[in-house]
């Protein structure tokens, strides 16, 4: 019972991710794009929940939908593009080339996954309700935190400098007067 329900939800979320992602990249209105993209993130969070990765699910929403997309919205609203400005970027050939490239990439992905035999593994066994995942999820935050602050402490520290660099850089570029 639980497995079937999970499978149904898996496909619902999968459709949500793919559909909203597709709509997001085809909208002309930047606000609509941002909204659909955040719906896409919610779908991804849903998939994480199905894998009993609650921490990741929550962080996905918190960081992507709740912080990054809101910042995007903020900027979009400040810039306030008009319809005429958006029309200027039209270019049919570029769109076709982009679509062809994306389809080609999709084909390569599918081919790879098929050749690796991942399609043969039943969905339930791999992603949903696997034995022990629920138990593992209990200490999940700790499971993520311990490697982050032990094995991966070096990349973690480098990231802090990366962010510092980004802050310095964005102040430099955006601020009109540096005094």
């Amino acid at each position, binding site marked *: 019972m639980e497995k079937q329900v999970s499978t149904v939800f898996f496909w619902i979320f999968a459709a949500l991710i793919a559909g909203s992602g597709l709509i997001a990249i085809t909208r002309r209105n930047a606000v609509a794009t941002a909204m659909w993209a955040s719906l896409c993130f919610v779908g991804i969070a849903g998939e994480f929940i199905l894998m009993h990765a609650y921490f990741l699910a*929550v962080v996905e929403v918190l960081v992507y939908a*709740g912080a990054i997309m809101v910042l995007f*919205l903020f900027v979009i609203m400040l810039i306030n593009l008009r319809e005429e400005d958006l029309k200027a970027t039209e270019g049919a050939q570029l769109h076709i080339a982009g679509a062809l490239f994306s389809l080609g990439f999709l084909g390569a992905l599918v081919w790879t996954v098929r050749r690796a035999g991942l399609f043969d593994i039943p969905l339930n066994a791999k992603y949903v309700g696997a034995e022990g995942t629920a138990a593992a999820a209990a200490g999940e935050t700790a499971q993520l935190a311990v490697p982050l602050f032990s094995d991966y402490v070096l990349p973690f520290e480098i990231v802090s400098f990366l962010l510092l660099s980004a802050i310095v850089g964005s102040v430099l570029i955006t601020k009109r007067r540096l005094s």
Partner: protein
Amino acid sequence: MLFVDILWKLLEIVLVAAVALPTTAALLVWAERRVSAFMQDRLGPNRVGPAGLLQPIADLLKFIFKEDVVPGHVNKAIYILAPALSLVPALLAFAVVPYARDMAILDVNVGILYVFSVSSIAVYGITLGGWASNSKYSLLGGVRASAQMISYELALGLSVVPVLLVTGETHLGRIVEWQAANGWLVLYLFPAWIIFLVSSYAETNRLPFDCPEAETELVAGYHTEYSSMKFALFFLAEYIHMITASALTVTLFFGGWHVPFFTLPEGGWGTTLSCLAFCAKTGFFLFLFIWVRWTLPRFRYDQLMNLGWKILLPASLGIIMLTAGGVALLAD
């Protein structure tokens, strides 16, 4: 999971989300008007029902029967979506709050993060409502709201980190249990609580931080162009956010359902008493919201940003470091 269990859960959800929270919000509106009236040496609404208690119902009827104006210049889809986007996260966020002993709608390990992630979505409603209205006051309100809520989310989140450090839990129920065993966290983390309180006022857009709808500058801010039930949804959302914020303050710092110096009996009576304790504490903080609103003037926008980024954020980081140091020392 049995069918009956699911039915009970659904009943609980309906009771909390559709009955308890809106009713409390309605009472809160009434209380706000009465308290403000007393503070200003007036009487406030006292005609409908005993002491004016039925006033919210009259208000509701008025909202329902008002004409629902959708201005011609708005971005229609988002304009209609925005009030719902504002209300739903407010209701969702309450799901993990342990409102009585061993009782919460949603029992997840990452409860506190869940609250943050859901309430971080809440900013969409206000921001988009302001943008879709396509008027300058609304837009300014929306821009202010997104900037303000992002800024104070940081301080709010960081002020909770000491709680996690001390208790070692992200599960709200177990945080309360820890407090029942070791004493309320406000005793250990008083400065963190102050930051949490201030930030939660900014997150709920309440005075002294109600810049997104500052009447004197922006007419009514992000909901200038809204009328009838759509406006009521924004209104309701704000009050439910207040309830959630108060409930969280109680849960994180004031022992949740725990009653000090008194052992709750086992079984149903204990649970009921614990729920009442929780409601009483939450009620006090709701009163504090009103009290503050009618006492303090509004911050100027740059002052608000300075407070958030230059005082609260560094202060909460400092508290985290001190707490972490303390926890590490005591752990040995």
